[in-house]
């Protein structure tokens, strides 16, 4: 592991906020499944498992607006803050805590919501 540890053992430094395009996403690679890191127009940063609850599409490739990302595969819309699909679709993606200190973005791998990720 080459992650930088800050404060507690939970937080991993994953990069700077400018590394993520505004209204865009970058990926943190992980053996257990990649995590998509999103940045919205208010410079808020969110982390979701990079797998749409519908058919496993890569959410990191979706279009971001407000606190929503639209999956590129079949246009499911998911809340960035809670991982919930926007009605009438039903489902969720696991979310992960993000902390920002100055320019730096930290990710915790302790899942935040109680969504049970569907395994294919």
């Amino acid at each position, binding site marked *: 592991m080459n992650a930088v540890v800050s404060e507690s053992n939970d937080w991993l430094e994953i990069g700077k906020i400018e590394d*993520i395009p505004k209204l865009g996403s970058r990926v943190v690679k992980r*053996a257990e499944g990649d995590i998509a890191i999103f940045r919205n127009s208010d410079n808020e940063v969110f982390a979701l498992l990079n797998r749409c609850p519908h058919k496993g599409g*890569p959410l990191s490739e979706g279009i971001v*607006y407000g606190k929503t990302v639209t999956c590129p595969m*079949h246009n499911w819309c998911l809340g960035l803050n809670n991982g919930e699909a926007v009605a009438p679709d039903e489902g969720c993606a696991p979310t992960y805590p993000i902390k920002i200190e100055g320019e730096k973005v930290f990710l915790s791998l302790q899942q935040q919501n109680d969504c049970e990720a569907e395994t294919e």
Partner: protein
Amino acid sequence: MKEKLILIGNGMAGMRTLEELLKLEPEMYDITVFGAEPYPNYNRILLSPVLAGEKTIDDIILNSREWYAENNIELHTGSVVCEIDRVKHSVKTEAGDEFKYDRLLIATGSNPFIIPVPGHDLDGVIGFRDIADVDTMIQSSKDHKKAIVIGGGLLGLEAANGLMIQGMDVTVVHLLENLMERQLDAPASDLLKTSLIEKGLNFLMEVQTAEIVGDQRVEKVKFADGSELDADLVVMAVGIRPNIELAKKAGLYCERGLVVSDTMQTFDPRIYAVGECVQHRGNTYGLVAPLFEQAKVCANHLATLGYGRYEGSVTSTKLKVTGIDLFSAGNFKGDEDTEDIVFQDPKAGIYKHLVLRDNKLEGAVLYGDTVDGAWFFQLMREATDITDIRQQLLFGQAHLGNSGHGGQNVAMAMSDDAQVCDCNGITKGEIVVAITSKGLFTLDDVKAHTKAAASCGSCAGLVEQLLESTLGGNYTTPECKPVCKCTDFTHDQVRAAIRDHKLTSMKMVFDYMEWRNSDGCHVCRPALNYYLISSWPEEAVDDPQSRFINERAHGNIQKDGTFSVIPRIWGGKTTPDELRAIADAADKFDAGEVHITGGQRINLLGIKKEELPEIWDFLSERGLISGHAYGKALRTVKTCVGSTWCRFGTQDSTQMGIDLEKLSWGSWMPHKFKMAVSGCPRNCAEATIKDFGVVAIESGWELHIGGNGGVKVRATDMLCRVRTAEEVEEYAAAFIQVYREEAHYLERTAPWLGRIGLSYVKERILDDEVGRKALHKRFLVSQKIAQNDPWKARAKGEYAHEFTPLKSLGV
């Protein structure tokens, strides 16, 4: 302190207005709703199926009591408002309670008209309007046998059908010669009567009701000609009257209905009104579709946005009697200035009558085959010039331009388990259940809830038929479809604003057009990005975050998240060196599959996103560039070998293909754009199903436009013949540029041409030489910026963040 909004009338029009208002301004008002009936808002148009035993009351509730609570709306059911004090701004209920308002919305609907003959107040004489009436009818059918329905209109026939299904012996009494005379002409009306008689209904035509006789309860009905008929139940369905008693009492100006302006305001500007109680530009409406349009406008003004305008509605009707298929819309009777197109096959029970004025469709009556009702209705509302399709018009949309993915096309004849959406596997039964249980009214609602018609869209017509047959004439197609939920403006309005006001960035569009969401959404952003860069190629900056992933990553995303790589092969002509480069790339980057495409190119599949810049660099060094196979852009120019080799060839079609591809590669379009050049009329390159097709002839070139394969095959229309290669290029560029400047985003040339008509394109390109040359020039200006190989730039390190992970955790 929030302003207080009071709604009188807890029905579909009033509640729809509140729903639209909550979407715009959820926190603006303290809202109180008064309803005379003891139920929350229900779907009144589904009362007929409840009577027919096909649905229950619970099935047709639209807003549950929980919904009101969740939205902080105070609901008073079974509470009649009896007074409006316009000076004190308050309303008073029959129970004597008084409530203050800042704004008031009146949606009191209508009352059934009860003919004031002697005996009209006996027990067992009712209207057909609300749940209480349906309860009375169902109860009567248990204890009594004989029913008379007075009125052979839409509502009367639905009531009669329901009572018959409940086991009663039903006679329909009608004053006039023809049933449903407000919707049908005589031949259609005759066909309808014949089918209803076969189903078991009885009819007495051209008789006038004189008296209803009985002691306590109705026993018989006497007619003006002296005849009489026994009856245990009489349903009056001779029409509705706007319920304006309360409004009149409050001194609001009323004629037949409560008069409102285009902003849905009464003569007292604090008081709004929508629904069946209002009279707008002299018309009253009794169908849901116009009421919903009114609701949207009214909500716009209640939210103080101030730009919505209601300008009246064209309505269509469909009878909700199982097994009977009829459709009626607009002015179907015509006059001395209209023309008729009629198809009549009485034995098969099919009748179609279209009314035209100045080459536009003005009315339609269909019986027995209503597949094209929705299409005709759309042609009417959009006032489409049908000159170019007049000869095929009556045979319907399916007969325009050839065939395509067939599927089913007659909704009524399908069984519940028949598949409607062949992409997502959605059955008729699932769609109908969703429409009724979830209270859906539009195609978009059905798409969102069921996914039917949400992929390729070829079943959209079928879904519209299901909406019609489930909801009657009450399903709604928006008058002008907005770009997305962020705005009420249409594609044309947005394009015009971008052009006329020189809006050159997305932020300018959002500000100028008051977008509801500050970032837009996944629907509008790609469209706006295209409109900006196509309108202002030299000023607007392309926004990668508003591009769909395929265009952002310059490859087609596959279901496993890998990408495909398709280099450009100019005019389909390649060399051993190019093929070696592609083969080497496939080996080096471990392509999962190598596929020859339909456009004479080679597709390397299964390339990992991180490796895209490397493979592009590899190909770029060997002289290959991006094929834009992933974009709403010029795709390929397919060719045959032409006169260089072929004994039939008349011109060098391969070179023409290469030249056209060199001219147009890299250009962004509203949708994908394909070309082909055939070397002789045998047309081996299939040029007549391309967006722009060229067929070589001995004396020059024949130019074709607007074809495509795909969901619905459309053969091209012939544009013209030209002599020289220079002319081919000029005409091609001009056509592309009109399409680029005027089509809606995601509209291919085939439907675009269907919408605007071939005559229009001919005017722009053939008749207007100066205009054609200007279009050609504008295309070349735009190409100067667009013809920049995106692969090469990224291979050299541009947008590197797009292709590298932010971080890798131990993998």
